[in-house]
């Protein structure tokens, strides 16, 4: 980023964009500056059931607190909690308990009343094999269940991680002894999902997540065979088949590849999204047949050169055009509105090769968003985090200005309206990372 640019403060941005909800601007700012809980706030979290010490489950001797989420009054997620291992911008905000109410503070100024969401009951439970359920389902947010497909990323192993990513460096709750799912770990998933569905009114969405594994049977390149990313898809299918046992979806008549009716049946859609790598068409069909409803494959950075620099693993296996083609191919299989991609907004401003001007970066991002929208793909974006363990952290990369995200969210929202696209499966209730989906709350 060009360092001489004056960065607007929260109040300056709010004044400049009066039609943009202040709460959402504040949410962006909490992500950029981080939020620290006072001792009193922590006590409040305990009293409201929004605190869980996971150290025992993870076999750690030191305390490892997990908090329920914190929301602004309108239900918007407050971001920036657990910011101890992140590079931030300016001074952090505070959460404090004042006269029995939880407040967001900037220094000593009371800004917004906020509230805790309690941690789910399954945190305290174990499967019949004795596995803490919190290690089976990684989600702590209300509404969304997240299941790790496997616990590694091949790009990291080949020292080709996406530069903003800390997936392999940071301890995940769901690290398992076995990297891929075994019959026992699948049974743990089955038990855990059934158990958490007993918590009425809690969940609306299941995300399957993983690192990338391009190994499979590719004809060319490092991995020879028939189909790239087959290993990754195999793991998704194991989990989808396990989830079929939990939901009341019916098997439906299948259609042959040439479009004619088949005497076979396939699984009807499960309420499941996969945040996956770029799979070839034949692998996407396997996922569809196993009941996957929504396919999310993240392009991360739209600009061609920056994609190659920031996402070297994706560039190697098997390049930007391959990823784009895969995403577009998924629309034919999963349907318009059931495929999306994501930008890690702000990565494209990283030094030394990133855009030097905000407007250039915005134009590039919005070009990508419009391209995908024309082809029936919705593009969300998340705010760049520079977390310990990522290449960007080592490089001391800076976060973009607050205003950048406001302008990007506005631009994407405009394109969303123009193409009448939505991605409620990535909606504001799911995890709060997608600012454009906050704005989509005003779409009936």
């Amino acid at each position, binding site marked *: 980023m060009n360092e001489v640019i004056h960065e607007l403060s929260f109040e300056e941005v709010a004044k400049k964009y009066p039609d943009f*909800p*202040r*709460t959402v601007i504040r949410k962006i700012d909490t992500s950029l500056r981080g939020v620290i809980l006072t001792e009193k706030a922590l006590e409040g979290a305990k009293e409201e059931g929004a605190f869980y010490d996971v150290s025992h489950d993870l076999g750690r001797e030191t305390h490892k607190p997990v908090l329920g*989420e914190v929301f602004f*009054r*309108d*239900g918007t997620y407050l971001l920036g909690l657990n910011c101890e291992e992140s590079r931030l911008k300016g001074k952090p905000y505070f959460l404090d308990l004042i006269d029995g109410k939880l407040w967001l503070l900037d220094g000593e100024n009371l800004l917004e009343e906020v*509230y*805790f*969401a*309690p941690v789910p009951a399954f945190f305290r439970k174990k499967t019949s094999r004795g596995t803490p359920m919190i290690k089976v389902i990684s989600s702590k947010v*209300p*509404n969304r269940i997240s299941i790790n497909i496997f616990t590694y990323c091949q790009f990291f192993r080949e020292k080709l991680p996406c530069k903003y990513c800390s997936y392999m460096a940071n301890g995940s709750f769901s690290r398992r002894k076995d990297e891929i799912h075994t019959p026992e770990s699948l049974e743990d998933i089955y038990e855990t999902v059934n158990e958490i569905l007993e918590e*009425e*009114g*809690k969940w609306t969405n299941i995300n399957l997540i993983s690192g990338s594994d391009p190994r499979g049977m590719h004809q060319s390149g490092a991995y020879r065979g028939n189909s790239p990313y087959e290993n990754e898809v195999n793991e998704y299918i194991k989990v989808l088949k396990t989830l079929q046992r939990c939901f009341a979806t019916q098997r439906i008549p299948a259609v042959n590849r040439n479009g004619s009716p088949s005497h076979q049946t396939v699984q009807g859609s499960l309420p499941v999204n996969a945040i996956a790598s770029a799979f070839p068409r034949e692998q996407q069909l396997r996922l569809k047949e196993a009941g996957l409803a929504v396919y999310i494959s993240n392009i991360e950075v739209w600009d061609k050169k920056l994609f190659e620099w920031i996402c070297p693993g994706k560039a190697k296996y098997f390049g930007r055009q391959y990823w784009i083609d895969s995403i577009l191919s998924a629309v034919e299989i999963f349907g318009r509105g059931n495929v999306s991609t994501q930008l890690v907004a702000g990565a494209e401003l990283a030094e030394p090769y990133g855009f030097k001007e905000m407007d250039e970066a915005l134009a590039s991002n919005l070009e990508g968003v419009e391209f995908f929208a024309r082809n029936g793909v919705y593009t969300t974006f998340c705010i760049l985090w520079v977390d310990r363990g990522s290449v960007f952290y080592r490089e001391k990369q800076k976060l973009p200005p607050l205003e950048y995200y406001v302008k990007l969210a506005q631009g994407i929202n405009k394109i969303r309206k123009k193409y009448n696209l939505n991605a*409620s499966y990535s*909606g504001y*209730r799911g995890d709060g990372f997608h600012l454009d989906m906050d704005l989509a*709350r*005003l*779409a*009936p």
Partner: protein
Amino acid sequence: MFKLPKEVVDLINDPESIKIVATADEKGNPHCAVKDFFTLLEDGNLAFAEEFEGSQTNVNLVRAIWFAKNVELTVRGKDGTTYQIKGKPYKYFYTGPLFEKFYLAAREKWGPDSELAGVWVITPEEVKNETYEVRKKEEDKKHPFFRHLDRSSVRRTKIQNSKSEISN
């Protein structure tokens, strides 16, 4: 905080009274919706259940909480007693104990396949008695010349059997 009179509270808590939420969209177009689950909270705020995330009411309420707009709640009892409460959206819950309470109530009423998006909490700012007899008295006093002259309270004598005369 503005405190609702007991009569209004009783009406809100009466499951048989009709409750209507009025909101406005971006262009000011009004939208009214009947709501089944309404309650007064201990802190004096009102809470009601919103069934659908994408409903016009919900969208309008999001706009109202973002841009400090008012909403209006009308509650009408079996005997016609009616109150209008003006207020502002204060909170929206889709998780936590209050949401769960409403969610289970909705399940009980509408069955195991019912849906509930969230619970809105409204801070009342003003209440007005809109019961017909009460409003009539107020208007008679305020606008005596808007009254029709054939009303029994205005005319000295009343024509008997006027209806039958017309029909004859």
